[in-house]
């Protein structure tokens, strides 16, 4: 019993230590992540729109995108288009890993951020903002350019 307790105490100590180290690492890597080429493909009639971007991680550890929210949309979710033979379907995704010193593309035919329930009228040419939350604690509120589906490319 005592031994177990001791083990527990030392484990707790190790946890506290690693936690402290991790926080220190966070502070050093405060700007490890950035977002580029962020845009939304607008569709008429309040149809669900898709947001796309490239996430860049300059740190030496992989970081996960774990949550997306927006003041412009009631609902923002990461989805993946999955092919099964000739048909395709969308699946919800919990996280997207941005590799160390690498990028993760949220791009047509792969991942997209499904945007629903626009909170105000949104039209091509507007800029909307999405808040991306990462596993290292970093949060990025990023402007996304809203494009007409005819000129998306």
């Amino acid at each position, binding site marked *: 019993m005592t031994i177990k307790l001791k083990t527990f105490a030392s484990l707790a100590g190790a946890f506290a230590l690693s936690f402290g180290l991790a926080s220190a690492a966070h502070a050093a890597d405060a700007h490890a992540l950035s977002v580029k080429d962020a845009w939304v*493909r*607008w*569709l*008429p*009639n309040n*149809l*669900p*729109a*898709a947001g796309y971007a490239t996430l860049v991680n300059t740190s030496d550890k992989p970081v996960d995108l774990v949550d997306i929210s927006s003041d412009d949309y009631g609902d923002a979710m990461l*989805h993946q*288009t999955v092919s*099964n033979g*000739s*048909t*395709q*379907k*969308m699946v919800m995704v919990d996280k997207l890993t941005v590799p160390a010193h690498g990028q993760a593309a949220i791009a*047509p*035919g792969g991942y*997209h951020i*499904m*945007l*629903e329930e626009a909170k105000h009228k949104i039209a091509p040419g507007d800029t909307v903002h999405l808040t991306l939350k990462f596993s290292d604690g970093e949060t990025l509120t990023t402007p996304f350019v809203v494009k*007409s*589906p*005819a000129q*998306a*490319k």
Partner: protein
Amino acid sequence: MSRSLSTTLGALIVLGALAGCTQRAEPWHLTNVTGHLPDLDFTLTADDGRPVDAASFKGRTSLVYFGYTHCPDVCPETMGRLMQVLGKLGPDAQKIRILFITVDPARDTPQALHDYVGAFDAQHAEGLTGTAWQIESLAKRYRVAYQMEKRDPNGNYEVTHSSAVYVFDSEGRARLLATDHDTPDAIAQDLRRIIDDHS
């Protein structure tokens, strides 16, 4: 000796003629389905609410795409690629019609389709809907698979579906199948051949 020479010459001429043939029957970039799929034939409802049949699209090359408007990624991406194709075709785009046939007739009313295709290209794209039975039998005719997924708590749902684009020539004959892997350039090059064959 002279005989074998003439035989060789003869063989060379035949080979030359064959090579000529091969050149004319240049392979397509897209999947050639000529003779493997039935002609364009349907009775549906146009995005202006009027009944329409396949005969109204004769005389133009038709690009038929089965999709639905509540589809945020694949459908608008495919439509966007077709817009790029039209851009590459220049004035020949006048000879093309894009038919966006919904696999979600419950939500895609003529008005919804009208707004949707209008956001891409009101001039060349037309939205078509119909009864569940009309859509189902048409999809079956072209072996298009689609399936409604489970509704979310808000009652929204996705439709799993195939995203191929069917190319019919001006006579309404099924000619080519374009998939996600075909670039706008490849599609435009093949469409030009289809248009030239029938103009």
